[in-house]
């Protein structure tokens, strides 16, 4: 049985606030099952010595991924607001985990976004949409580390 945590955040509700509840169930060693209501379950894990465990998502994977996906979502949102089209978008993100004091922290995320467009006329607007997506990324702005954005736009 998976119980969700909405009940714990009843204080200080405002119309503008959005809540994101998740549930995690330990499944032995460093593995778990991550559930978000109504969505596919994700297997998580940090590999010890078992090959099978290497296919689970680590916390660092999820952290870096959340920033990259948020950047993509922001880009899509701004292209819609600006009424511009693109043919493809993908983004590579690399997160660095480093020792900080007694513990570790993700100290930097480097993103490289590639966008293909049909004609050079929209290049300037696509660049602007990418800039705005980086600036207003909810998730990226919730992280301590700096995030760099490299952009490659090509016409095909």
């Amino acid at each position, binding site marked *: 049985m998976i119980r969700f*945590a909405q009940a*714990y*955040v009843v204080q200080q509700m*405002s119309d503008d*606030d*959005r809540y*994101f*509840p*998740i549930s*995690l169930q*330990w499944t032995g060693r460093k593995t778990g099952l*991550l559930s*978000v209501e*109504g*969505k*596919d379950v*994700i*297997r*998580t894990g*940090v590999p010890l010595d078992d090959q099978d465990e290497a*296919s689970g*998502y680590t*916390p*660092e*994977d*999820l*952290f*870096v*991924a*959340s920033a*990259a*996906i*948020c950047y*993509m*979502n922001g880009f*899509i*949102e701004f292209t819609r607001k600006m009424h511009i089209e693109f043919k493809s*978008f*993908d983004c*590579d*993100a*690399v*997160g*660095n*985990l*480093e*020792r900080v004091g*007694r*513990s*570790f*922290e*993700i100290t930097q995320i480097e993103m490289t976004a590639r966008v293909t467009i049909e004609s050079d006329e929209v290049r300037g607007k696509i660049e602007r949409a990418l800039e705005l997506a980086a*600036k*207003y990324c*909810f*998730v990226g*702005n*919730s*992280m*301590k580390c700096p995030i760099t954005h490299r952009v490659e736009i090509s016409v095909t």
Partner: protein
Amino acid sequence: MEIPIRKLFPRTQNGFVGVALSEDTQTYNVRVDWTRDRVGKLLIDGKPTVEVATPPEFSGPEGIISPEDLFVASAAVCLMTTFVTFTKKMRFEYKGFTVNGTGTLQKLEKGYQFTKIVLNATVTVESEELRPKAQRALELAGKYCLVTNSMKCETEHINNVVVE
């Protein structure tokens, strides 16, 4: 309990301590690939592909994992793996571990930002004697969780130990 620091002054590529990549640095590579509308794929080498999207809260489709979900999940998963590490160091067994996490995205001046994550963790142990150890491992896990330490927002921990 402290995490042992094996190397106080890690060597780096350019000779500056703690500035450039050191032996203590690990990198994590992910790719996102847009497929349609507000939907894309999350690709990590050697791991199953996950479909991802803008959440319904921001005009995305229902039923697809969002970056907001993954942000909160990264904190919960990190709490769990850090907890497991401490139980191994403290050499005690437990029967179950669950976390219910909720992130609050709040509208600030510069747009939305996560301002709080509540992590409600429950450890199940076999006997009453293990309760203090489980409690301590939960506290240490919260303190040394590298993902929440990498976030700007406050994390509230609600720790429960159940004997069963």
